[in-house]
C-alpha cells in the first residue's frame, strides 16, 4: 500500500511542460501520419476520379466496381490463397525452430536467436532478388540441375509462377514467425510440463495437450505478422510472379501509378484493410478460445 502511495506522489508533480514535450513527437506522428493519412484513404475511397488529388463528389461506385468485376474477386482470392499458404508454410516450419530454441537450445540459444532474426534486418528487395537469380531460366537452380545431370534442359517452370511467389514470400518473411512463437513457448511454466510428465502423459500427449494449446497465442501472432505484409505485397509478384500471380497490392500500386485512379486504389486499400480486420478478429476470437495469457 505504501508503495502505491509513493508511486502516485511523483505523478502529481508532473510538470505540464514536460508532458507536452514528451507527448508531442509521438502525437504528431501517430495522429497526423497514421490516423489522418488512413482517414484520407477512407475519404478518397468514396470519391469519384476526376484527376484531381482528392477526387470529386460522394459515391460508392468504386466499391460497386470492386464487388461486381470478377477480376477483383479473382485477384483478391489469389492474394488470400497465396498469403494463406505463405502463412501456413512459415508458421509450420518456424514452430519446430521456436520449440528447439525454447526447450533444447541451452547455451546456444542467444546465438541461434540472433541467427534466425538477422535476415529480418537485411534488405527485403535483395532477399527477393536472390530468388530471382535462383529461379531464372538461365539461373542458379536450372544450371545446378543440369550441371549435376538431373535435367538435360533448363525449364521455365520455376520463375513467373504463383509457386515462386509463395516460396519467395515464405523465405522473405520466415524470420517474422519464429520470435512470437518462441516467446509464447518460453513463457510456458516448466512446472506444467513436469506435471504432465509426472501424471503419466507421454511426450507427444504432453505436447498436444499442454504445449501446443499454450503456445497458440504466439502462433496466432506469428500468423498475423506474416499474413499482413504478404497479402498486400506487390514487389515479389512483380519480381518472380509473372502475370499469373498479380496480387491485390499490385493492383493498388498500379492505381497510384500507371492506371492513375487514386480513388479506386483507395477503395481497394479499404477492402484490403477490411479483409485484414476480419482476419485479426478471427485470430482474436481463436486467441480467446485458447485462453490468451497476454
Amino acid at each position: 500500500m505504501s508503495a502505491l502511495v509513493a508511486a502516485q506522489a511523483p505523478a502529481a508533480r508532473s510538470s505540464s511542460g514536460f508532458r507536452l514535450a514528451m507527448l508531442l513527437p509521438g502525437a504528431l506522428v501517430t495522429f497526423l501520419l497514421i490516423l489522418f493519412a488512413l482517414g484520407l484513404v477512407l475519404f478518397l475511397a468514396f470519391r469519384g476520379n476526376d484527376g484531381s488529388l482528392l477526387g470529386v463528389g460522394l459515391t460508392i461506385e468504386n466499391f460497386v466496381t470492386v464487388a461486381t468485376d470478377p477480376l477483383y474477386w479473382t485477384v483478391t482470392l489469389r492474394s488470400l490463397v497465396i498469403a494463406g499458404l505463405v502463412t501456413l508454410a512459415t508458421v509450420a516450419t518456424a514452430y519446430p525452430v521456436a520449440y528447439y530454441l525454447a526447450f533444447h537450445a541451452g547455451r546456444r540459444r542467444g546465438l541461434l536467436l540472433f541467427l534466425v532474426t538477422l535476415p529480418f534486418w537485411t534488405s527485403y528487395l535483395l532477399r527477393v532478388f536472390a530468388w530471382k537469380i535462383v529461379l531464372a531460366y538461365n539461373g542458379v537452380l536450372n544450371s545446378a540441375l543440369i550441371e549435376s545431370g538431373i535435367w538435360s534442359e533448363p525449364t521455365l517452370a520455376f520463375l513467373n509462377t504463383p509457386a515462386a511467389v509463395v516460396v519467395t514470400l515464405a523465405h522473405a518473411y520466415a524470420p517474422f514467425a519464429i520470435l512470437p512463437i518462441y516467446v509464447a513457448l518460453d513463457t510456458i511454466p516448466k512446472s506444467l510440463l513436469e506435471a504432465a510428465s509426472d501424471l503419466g502423459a507421454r511426450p507427444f500427449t504432453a505436447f498436444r495437450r499442454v504445449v501446443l494449446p499454450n503456445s497458440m497465442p504466439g502462433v496466432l501472432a506469428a500468423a498475423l505478422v506474416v499474413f499482413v505484409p504478404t497479402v498486400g505485397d506487390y514487389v515479389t509478384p512483380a519480381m518472380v510472379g509473372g502475370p499469373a500471380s498479380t496480387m491485390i497490392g499490385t493492383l493498388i500500386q498500379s492505381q497510384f501509378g500507371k492506371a492513375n485512379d487514386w480513388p479506386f486504389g483507395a477503395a481497394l486499400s479499404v477492402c484490403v484493410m477490411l479483409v485484414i480486420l476480419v482476419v485479426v478478429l478471427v485470430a482474436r476470437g481463436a486467441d480467446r478460445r485458447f485462453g490468451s495469457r497476454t
Partner: protein
Amino acid sequence: MKAERAGTKRDGRWLGLYVLAYLVFLYLPVLLIPLFSFNDSIQAAFPLQGFTSQWYATLYGNPALSGALLNSLVIGAIAASGATLCGITVSYMDLYGRSPLAATISAIARLPILIPGVIVGISLLILINLIGLGPSRVAIVLGHILVALPTTVVVMRSRFAAIPRTVREAALDLGASDWTTFRRVMLPLSLPAVLSAFMLAFLISFDEFIVVFFLAGTEPTLPLYIWSQLRFPRSLPTVMALGTVILATSFIIAGTAEILRHRGLGAARRDPA
C-alpha cells in the same frame, strides 16, 4: 530440466538437425548474391566461371549510384533520429505518463505492423500531396519514421520496463524534476538501447523499398536505384556486387545493435533474457 528424459534428448538432436537445415534455407539464397558477385560471368549460373572483382570496380565512379547512396545515408540518419526520438518519448510516456492519451499514442504507434506497406505508402502519398510537399526526400523521411516506429517503440519500451521502478522513484523522491529524472537517470541507463533502436531504425530506412517507392521524387534511394537497374540484364553482376556490400553492412550494423541491446542492463539489473 528434471522433465527432460532420454526420449526428449533424442528429439532434441533431430530438432537440432532441423534447425540447421532451416538456417541453411534461410541463408543459402541470400549468400548466393556474394558468391556470384565474384563470378566472372554476366549470368548467375553454375558452373562458376572464375574469380573476379571487376563488378566491384564498376561500383566506383558511378554518379547515379553514389548519389543514391548519399541519399539513403542522409535519409536513414534523419529518419532514424526521428523514429528513435518518437520511440523514446512514446514508450516512456506509455510506461510512466499515466494518461490514456499516452497509452493510445503508444498503441497507434505499433499499428503500422497491421497495415500492409503498400497502404502505408499510398496513404502517405495522398497526405504529402495534400500538404503540398509532394514526393521528396522529406516525404521519404516521414514515411521511414513511420515504418521504423514500431521497432523503436518496442526496443525502448522493453528497455525502460527493465529498469526497476524504484530507480525512477528514488530520483523523484530526492527532488529531481521529471525532466531531470528523464535526462539524468532514465536516458543514461537506457543509452545502449537508444543506440540499438537508432541503428535498427537506420537499417529499416536504408533497406526499405515498399513505401519509398511511392514517396520518392527525382532523387532515388539505394533500393530504388537497385530496382531501376534490375530491368537491365547486363547490370545484374553490378547489382550483386552492390547487394553484397549492402548485406555485409546490414549484418555488421544489426550485429552491433543486438550486442548493444543486451549491454549495460547490469547497471540497472541483470539481463532478464
